[in-house]
């Protein structure tokens, strides 16, 4: 095949093709969410895989992506007021979030807390379970 024809085909293919750089996806979450079979979780959690925290726990959660994402939002949702990330930082492929399990409410219930993470082309929700200490 002549070089000119090859060039023609190459240019056409390049022109027709979509630019589809691989969307970053989550490789790991540390600590890893575990299946939690508490009755309340089964009833109210949309996904019963949670990171369990004890009252007063300060924990850093690290989310590792396949490649550096372009973050859109790191936020919180209903019932998240006790475990909102106090700070978060994205360095390359690693997103670190510091969370504090703080309960000063009078409720007898534990709740699922959600930290939604959105990046260009994807999204997920990290779910936490902030367990209050047993009352005396």
């Amino acid at each position: 095949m002549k070089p000119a024809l090859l060039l023609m085909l190459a240019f056409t293919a390049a022109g027709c093709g979509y630019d589809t750089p691989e969307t970053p996806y989550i490789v790991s979450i540390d600590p890893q969410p575990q299946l939690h079979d508490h009755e309340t979780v089964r009833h109210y959690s949309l996904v019963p895989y949670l990171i369990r925290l004890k009252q007063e726990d300060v924990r850093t959660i690290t989310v590792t992506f396949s490649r550096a994402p372009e973050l859109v939002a790191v936020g919180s949702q209903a019932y998240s007021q006790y475990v909102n990330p106090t700070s978060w930082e994205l360095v390359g492929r690693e997103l670190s979030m510091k969370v504090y399990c703080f309960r000063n409410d009078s409720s007898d219930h534990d709740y699922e807390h959600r930290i939604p993470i959105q990046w260009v082309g994807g999204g997920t929700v990290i779910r936490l379970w902030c367990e209050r200490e047993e009352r005396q």
Partner: protein
Amino acid sequence: MKPNRIFITLLFAVLGCTDREEELLPHIVSIDRNFREIDLALLGNYWSREAKHNNVIVLDRGGFQTITVIFSSPPNNLEMKLHDRSGSVLDAQDYILHGTALKIKLYCTFYIQGTYNTLTIDWSGGEGINSTVSIPVWCPFEDPPAKEDR
């Protein structure tokens, strides 16, 4: 390379690029998972009032399930919400877009079993044109009545 060949090469390249930009707003080509017709009349009064469509995605109970939505071209600014029967947002879902394929991970828990939910996907194309689609999702205690079963 002769000038006419250079011209033809450039023309092909321009044509290729032009094809790509023709579609300003991507549209949904297919939704792969358990998208089927149900009989609203057999759902009972409550659900037939709630359900606006009789084409629904029927989930299996428990476990993660992935729905794949194929667009005609890669959409921009995707946003996803799952609304429960009262219209309130249950949760943002796990989703990932690979080119034209959007994979959405859902989990049918006890909380939403036996309910009719709506998965809303918003996206945009070029020049700020937006589109939205609402996909009814049935999270069953049992399968809703299929039309052919009647």
